[in-house]
C-alpha cells in the first residue's frame, strides 16, 4: 500500500487557485524531491498536506497511510505521522525548545495510546537527537526559534523531526539558508532517518542538497501542476537548463 496518494488535487488560497490538479504517489521508504520556480505552489502543497486551514482543497483526494487526510485536523495529521519542516520556522517566545518538544511528543504518544514521557526520560532522548544535528545544548532552554539564526532554525526543524519520528516528512526548503557545513550536518541527520518504512518529500531549489540526500524521484512543479517527473538525473538537467523547457512537455506525474 502506498503511504501517500494524491489524486487530482486542486487547492486555493483566498479564492486563488494555486494547485491545479496534482497527482503524486509516495511509497514507504521512498524519497521524492519536488522542484520548481518561485511561486509555483511547492509550499502550498506542503501546507495542504499539513492541513493548514487557510488552504482550501476544492477538488481531489489525499490518502495518507490508508486514511483520508482531508478529514484530519492539522494535529491529527501530525499524530498520524506526517511531519512538515517549515520553510519559515515560527518563533514561540517564552516556551523553551525542550518543553515544547516534550509537549509535542507526548501529544503524539497520547494520540497513539502510548505512555507519555516525563522530563527525566525525555531529556536524554532530545540531547541525543541534538548531538546528531550538532546543536549546542544551550538550545534546550532557549525559547522555540526565538532569536535563532536562519540556519539554526532549519537545524532545529530536523531535530524535531528526529524526535517525532514521522512516517512521512515533508521538508520545505530545509537547505536554504544553511552554510556548507550545516548542509552536510542536516543531510547526515536526514539520511540517518531514511529507512524502508519512512518516506520523505524534499522541496528544494538546489541540486546541492540532492548531492547529499539522493532522491528516488524528482518532480517538477510549475504553475500548480507537476509537469515532469523522473529520477535523480532530472535534477541535474534542471540545474543546467532551468525550468522553461519542462513546461512545453505534457504533464506526466509518475506512478
Amino acid at each position, binding site marked *: 500500500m502506498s503511504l501517500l496518494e494524491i489524486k487530482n488535487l486542486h487547492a486555493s488560497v*483566498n479564492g486563488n487557485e494555486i494547485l491545479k490538479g496534482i497527482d503524486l504517489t509516495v511509497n514507504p521508504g521512498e524519497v521524492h524531491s519536488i522542484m520548481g520556480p518561485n511561486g509555483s505552489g511547492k509550499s502550498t502543497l506542503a501546507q495542504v498536506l*499539513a492541513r493548514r486551514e*487557510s488552504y482550501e482543497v476544492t477538488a481531489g483526494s489525499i490518502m495518507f497511510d490508508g486514511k483520508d487526510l482531508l478529514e484530519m485536523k492539522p494535529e491529527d495529521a501530525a499524530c498520524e505521522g506526517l511531519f*512538515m519542516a517549515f520553510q519559515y520556522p515560527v*518563533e514561540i517566545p517564552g516556551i523553551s525548545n525542550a518543553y*515544547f518538544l516534550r509537549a509535542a511528543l507526548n501529544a*503524539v504518544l497520547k*494520540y497513539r495510546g502510548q505512555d507519555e514521557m516525563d522530563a527525566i526520560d525525555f531529556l536524554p532522548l532530545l540531547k541525543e537527537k541534538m548531538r546528531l544535528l550538532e546543536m549546542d545544548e544551550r538550545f534546550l532552554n532557549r525559547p522555540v526559534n526565538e532569536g535563532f539564526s536562519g540556519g539554526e532554525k532549519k537545524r532545529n526543524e530536523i531535530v524535531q523531526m528526529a524526535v517525532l519520528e514521522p512516517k512521512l516528512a515533508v521538508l520545505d526548503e530545509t537547505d536554504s539558508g544553511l552554510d556548507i557545513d550545516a548542509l552536510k550536518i542536516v543531510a547526515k541527520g536526514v539520511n540517518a532517518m531514511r529507512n524502508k518504512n519512512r518516506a520523505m518529500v524534499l522541496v528544494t531549489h538546489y541540486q546541492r542538497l540532492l548531492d547529499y540526500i539522493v532522491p528516488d524521484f524528482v518532480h517538477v512543479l510549475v504553475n500548480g501542476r507537476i509537469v515532469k517527473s523522473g529520477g535523480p538525473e532530472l535534477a541535474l538537467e534542471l540545474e543546467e537548463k532551468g525550468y522553461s523547457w519542462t513546461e512545453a512537455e505534457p504533464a506526466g506525474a509518475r506512478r
Partner: protein
Amino acid sequence: MSSTVNQINDLTQQEYKWGFITSIDEDRLPPGLNEEIVRAISLKKGEPEFMMEWRLKAYRYWAQLEQKQAEPKWANVKYPPIDYQALSYYSAPKQKKELKSLEEVDPEILDTYAKLGIPLHEQKLLAGVAVDAVFDSVSVATTFKAKLAEAGVIFCSFSEAVKNHPELVKKYLGSVVPVTDNFFAALNSAVFSDGSFVYVPKGVRCPMELSTYFRINAQNTGQFERTLIIADEGASVSYLEGCTAPIRDENQLHAAVVELIAHDNATIKYSTVQNWYPGDKEGKGGIYNFVTKRGKALGKNSKISWTQVETGSAITWKYPSCILQGDNSIGEFYSVALTNNYQQADTGTKMIHIGKNTKSTVVSKGISAGHGQNTYRGMVKILKGATGARNYTQCDSLLIGDKCGAHTFPYIEVKNASARMEHEASTSKIGEDQIFYLQQRGISKEEAVSMIINGFCKAVFKELPMEFAVEAQKLLSISLEGSVG
C-alpha cells in the same frame, strides 16, 4: 486565513465555574449610606472610638465628593452610574456566637470553600499555606494561627486586629492610603467591614505563604475589604489573595484597599489571582473591581513586589503602586491582565522614587480577546532627591481576534537628571502561524493557544509562588477557552 479569523472571533465562552450561590442566613444592614450606617457598622463590629471617628472622617470626605459627583472618570472604562444609596454596606453570615475553631464554621460556608478548592481544613494545610477566608464582608476562619504565633507573626482578620492590636492599627491604618486619597478609598475607609491583617516582627521571615480568599456571596452588597501588612525591620513575608464571586445579573461593587509597609531591610511580596465573576458573554453582570493598592518601602533597602494575574471582573480599575522612600529601596510590579468578551481593564502601577538609588521594575502583559478592552496606565515619578534612581518598564499587549483593544498610557516625570529610565513596549496579535506551527507538531489548537499565552506571560508567572503559578496558568486557559475556534 478567513476561516481562522472567523474561528478566532467565534467566542463561545466557557462557563464561569465559580458562580454558585451559597444559601445562608445573613445579617445585613438596609441599603443606603449615611453617618448612621457608618456608625452602625462600627458598632456591630464593637470597634473602639478611634475607628468610628476615622470612618466618619472618611465618610464625610466621600460624601462631599459624591455630592460633587467627583467619582474618578479618567480611566478608560465605561459603565452606567452607580447608585451608592441602593447598595447595602454590610452583610455577614449570621452566626450565633464567636467561633473558636473551624468545626464551628457554618458547614455551608466550608462547603463553598471546598467547591472553590481552597484548602481550608487544617489537614490540607500541610502544603504550608495559611488561609484567611473573607466571605462577603466578614473573615470566617483563619487557619494555621498557632504556628504563625510561634514565630511571632500576627495574621488575623482586620476586626480581630482592631480588637487585639489597636496600637498597630492606629499607627499604620491610612498611613499609605489616607482616607482622602481617592473616591473609592474614602468609601472603603468609611464602610469596610473586614479584611486581613499581617504584622511580621523584626528579623522574622514568615515561615509560610500567607493567603486570603475573598468571596462575594450576598446580593446587592458591596464588598469592601481592608488589608494591612507590616513588615518590621529585616522581616519578610509573601502574601497571596484569590477572589471569586457567584454569577449574578446585576453588577456588584468591590472596592478594596490594601496598604503595605516595609521597614528597613524588609521585603513584602504581594500576589493576587483575581477571578471575580466577569459577566456573561454579552457583558451582563460581573464585578466592578475598583481597588486601591499601595505599598510604602519606608526603610532603607526595603522591597515591595506586586504580582497580579487579573482574569475576572467586568471592570478592573487598579494600580498597585510603590512609594520608594527608603534609600536603595526596590519596587516591582508584574502583571497579567486578561479581558475577554466585554470585560474592561484599566490597570498599571505608580512608582514614586523618593530615596536615593531606588529601583523599580514594571512588567505588564495585557491580553485582549473578544470585545475586551485592556489599558495599561503607568506612572514613574523620579523626585528631586532620588539621585541614581532607575526604572525599567516593559509593557506588552497581545490581541486575540480583531474586535478587542489594547491601550498604553505611560506617564514619566523626572526631576533628577541622574535617573536612568528604560521603556519597552510591544503589541502583537496571536499568530495563526504560531498556532499552526504547534498544531503541526501534534498539539491541539486549544493547547497551542494556551502555550503561546503562557509563553507571553512567562516573565510574570515566574514571579508567582510555584503552586499558584500553575493555578494561574490553568485559570488563563479556562478564561480563554473557546476564544480561539
